[in-house]
């Protein structure tokens, strides 16, 4: 990879309580690179820090959050050093975001035409008339039937799948280079989810977009992504090419996650497959366990895991994991 589109270096984001007595290490020493047109899946459970990671790229963190270290470089510029005005020129124009609940991203009082056209008016100084006509083209691009009529309608007149398409139309309106999608299909039905993922893939190819999927769903990663970063307790515990990681996960957490998913062809009754459950709960990030944060739930934990936090260790071609087993040269799949 040449110059990456986006690069995070040792990013750390903490949430600090009002009195400063409680510090939650939501994102802890996270490094990753994303090339133009690539698709990265950031996978983790609730509280693993994946949404905080996305919000810190866009600098949309809530007031209690502090970036305490590291750097975010996008198109060669340090995003953390930009002024608020400079950052506004990045958001929606160079980096766009799609959230889980489309109703929360749409203003119920404005027409679809005004909302889809808004980024064009803000970033490209388009007139209202030209913004509306381009909004019509965008609705066509996201396969909304009868786009010209839909421009005059309001969000409540659309179905969930259509609203999410409209949010997608807004996101691509200024031809961004990077699109961050945070659980974009969780609220959609299976067939609508599939249509939407196909649409995102088409938009990605048509516009040369880089995509970051923030999700807890490994199926989305298997279907959509080139690379995967697995987060646990604020850290990336394993990263690499999707195929490599699905075939040979190095971190016990990744492996357990992959084995915990039911498969379509399972079925109950005689010969039923038992799922591998990860016992216990994810840790409290205000008081994480010493050493590797996963050790209390890890079947392979050693004395070293309880004492020392593992660094990022290379596993193979483009694969790396934070696990002492890698240092010992013990593949967990053995």
């Amino acid at each position, binding site marked *: 990879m040449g110059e990456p589109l986006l690069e995070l270096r040792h990013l750390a984001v903490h949430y600090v309580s009002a009195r400063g007595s409680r510090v939650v290490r939501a994102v802890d020493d996270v490094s990753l690179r994303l090339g133009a047109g690539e698709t990265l899946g950031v996978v983790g*459970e*609730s509280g693993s820090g994946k949404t905080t990671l996305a919000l810190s790229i866009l600098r949309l963190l809530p007031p209690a959050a502090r970036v305490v270290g590291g750097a975010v470089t996008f198109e060669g510029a340090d995003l953390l050093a930009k002024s608020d005005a400079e950052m506004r020129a990045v958001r929606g124009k160079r980096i766009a975001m799609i959230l889980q609940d489309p109703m929360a991203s749409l203003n119920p009082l404005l027409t679809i035409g005004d909302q889809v056209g808004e980024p064009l008016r803000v970033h490209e100084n388009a007139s209202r008339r030209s913004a509306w006509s381009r909004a019509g083209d965008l609705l066509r691009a996201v396969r909304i*039937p009868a786009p010209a009529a839909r421009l005059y309608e309001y969000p409540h007149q659309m*179905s969930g*799948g*259509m609203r999410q398409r409209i949010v997608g139309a807004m996101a691509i309106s200024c031809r961004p280079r990077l699109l961050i999608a945070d659980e974009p299909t969780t609220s959609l*039905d*299976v*067939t*609508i*989810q*599939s*249509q939407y993922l*196909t649409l995102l893939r088409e938009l990605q190819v048509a516009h040369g977009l880089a995509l970051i999927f923030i999700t*807890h*769903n*490994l*199926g*989305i990663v*298997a*279907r959509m992504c080139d690379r995967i970063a697995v987060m646990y307790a604020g850290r990336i515990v394993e990263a690499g090419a*999707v*195929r490599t990681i*699905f075939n040979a996960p190095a971190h016990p957490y990744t492996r*357990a*996650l992959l084995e*915990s*998913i*039911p*498969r*379509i*062809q*399972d*079925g*109950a*009754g005689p010969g*039923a*497959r*038992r*799922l*591998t*459950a*990860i*016992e216990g*709960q*994810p840790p409290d990030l205000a008081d994480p366990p010493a050493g590797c944060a996963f050790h209390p739930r890890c079947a392979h934990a050693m004395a070293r895991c309880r004492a020392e936090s593992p660094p990022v260790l290379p596993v193979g071609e483009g694969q790396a994991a934070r696990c002492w087993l890698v240092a010992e040269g013990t593949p967990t799949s053995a």
Partner: protein
Amino acid sequence: MTALLEAVDVVKHFPVRGSLWRSSRRLVRAVDGVTFAIPPGQTLGVVGESGCGKSTTAKLILRLETPTAGALRFEGQDIQSLDPAGLRRYRSSVQAVFQDPYASLNPRMRVRAIIGEPLATNTPLPAREIRKRVLALLELVGLPERAHDLFPHEFSGGQRQRIAIARALALEPKLVVLDEPVSALDVSIRAQVLNLLADLQRRLGVAYFFIAHDLAAVAHMSHVVAVMYLGKIVEIGDARAIATDPKHPYTRALFSAALPSHPDEARQEIPLTGEVPSPIDPPAGCRFHPRCPEALPACAAQVPELLTVAGRHVACHLYDASLAGPAARHA
């Protein structure tokens, strides 16, 4: 094998509220003639998209709704015509676990009261005996003994779902309705709860009516799967057979849209155009025909009956030689 629960042509229509000045005679045909049977100790999984009628069917089983027509029979008895004593027995034989363990547990009750309540209301057991049973139930669902003095907020989502399961099992029910029991839980916790439900079924012989939008979770848990579309069952039969070799075009499209479990999994997506139509004015004939990639002329006119195809039942004209002619599909 005699069925534990049997549904025969069950229909549930809801009237659409009219405007302030005009009453409306329109109906939402939420469930429109479904027939299925759950044998003791087995799981019937129901899949289908929003508005297909799966949750309404669950409410009919729980007697939270009254069917417009048709009958639900539990151990041979119509559940609508039970006498008060029979109804009490039915209510303790059929329990439910819902999606959101944050909403289904009273935050002001201690766990021992939550799990003990069905026992205190339905049995003459003394307090000492109830306490013993609650501790046994906690052990059964894998919660520590000390949990019994705590409040729901002191537990994580997965643990709360275990409390809800313990409460559902307190009266040793024969059937538990599971409405999206794991969708609110984190990935690593889902497998814990699904395994627990499967273990409990093996140990206690309880039957499940399992609803989830996650096709893989339903297929994993079920002996029999029913696929619903706009209030009708379009395909019903052995879970593995349906998941690996679906016959109805809707089932095929639905399972082809499911996310792969591995990046190398062969995908042949059958794209569906448009969205599910409104159950207020469902399409005539086969309700799926406007979106069906293989629709025949007869599909718009005639409602397909369930036919036996390859060991399961499919409601589709493609398998009816008299309508599809020489192109009719066989097993």
